[in-house]
């Protein structure tokens, strides 16, 4: 608990440093900063990650994904992502079994903490893959979310 808080603080410090160095470094692999059509239109997570220059991401235990094990409704699946990796500048999300897996990249600057809450559509049960960019390197982890048939209720 303590440690993760400290690393967040450290991440904040690193952020300030990188902000001072300029925007280009903040978006490794997204230097052009345009909405990346080829990544968004890729049919697999691997292809999308390649298009984003994230193919070499290494497994990390310092990324927390909070999402339901079984989604009540695949149309709205809440996902909380926190990176405990110092110097985190962005979080990218890939819903591997969706027709277009790349779901988005969230960039943090000037004091924003490496955390995001989003809600996504899952076509079927899928690993939720997260890639974190930090100090020019990429880190990744994934969590499985199941989508089932519900009743009529509400």
């Amino acid at each position, binding site marked *: 608990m303590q440690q993760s808080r400290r690393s967040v603080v450290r991440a904040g410090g690193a952020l300030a440093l990188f902000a001072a160095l300029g925007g280009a470094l903040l978006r490794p692999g997204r230097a052009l900063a345009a909405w990346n059509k080829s990544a968004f239109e890729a049919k697999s997570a691997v292809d999308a990650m390649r298009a984003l220059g994230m193919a070499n991401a290494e497994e990390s235990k310092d990324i927390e994904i909070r999402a339901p094990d079984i989604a009540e409704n695949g149309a709205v699946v809440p996902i909380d992502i926190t990176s405990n990796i110092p110097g985190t500048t962005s979080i990218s999300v890939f819903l591997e079994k969706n027709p277009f897996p790349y779901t988005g990249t969230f960039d943090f600057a000037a004091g924003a903490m490496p955390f995001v809450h989003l809600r996504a559509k899952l076509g079927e049960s899928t690993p939720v893959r997260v890639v974190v960019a930090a100090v020019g390197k990429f880190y990744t982890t994934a969590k499985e979310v199941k989508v*089932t048939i*519900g*009743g*009529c209720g509400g």
Partner: protein
Amino acid sequence: MRLGLAAMMAAGAAVLAACAALQSSPRDGALALMQRDFHAEGIAGMDRLKEDDVQAACNKYKDSPPAELDAKLRGKQYAGVKWPADGKLLGDWKAGEKIAQNGRGMTWRDKGGVGGGCYNCHQIGPDTTSFGTIGPSLYQFGKLRGYGTDIQRYAYAKIYNAKAYNVCSQMPRFGHVGALTEAQMKDVTALLMDPASPVNR
């Protein structure tokens, strides 16, 4: 002109309903209001609000009619079960599983003979964890009861008309109301009774 007449008639019905609501029993008030404040939609006509003998008895006696009436109604429902002409009660359990999974049927926009919705209420096959608990588990149905003709007939008749065994059962009468076809009921019977069905694995 016609609209005006309809409006007058509606107003008349409203007055009648309001009077009924105030003066008579809650049941009469409810019946009058439902008659006025429902309308036919798609395949669901206003006739669906009329009780048949079974529904009337269950409504009147809060789902436990007196023994004599109960036996009489059960007998009548059982007598109405139409058995397959070819004498065969088991169809294809794989098709039966699909029918059991499909919850559509008899709502406004449905066509007849769509699904049985069995998983809405029952545990059946071992691979589906998304099952309801309104009815008992049917897992290992045949294995536990045996695969004989008598049990086959019981399963088929229960699907055809659950009220033949329990007058105020919450289970629909799939054959009696034409929600499932004969072939579909055979398939669901096979899902429960075929030794090769995953239900009996």
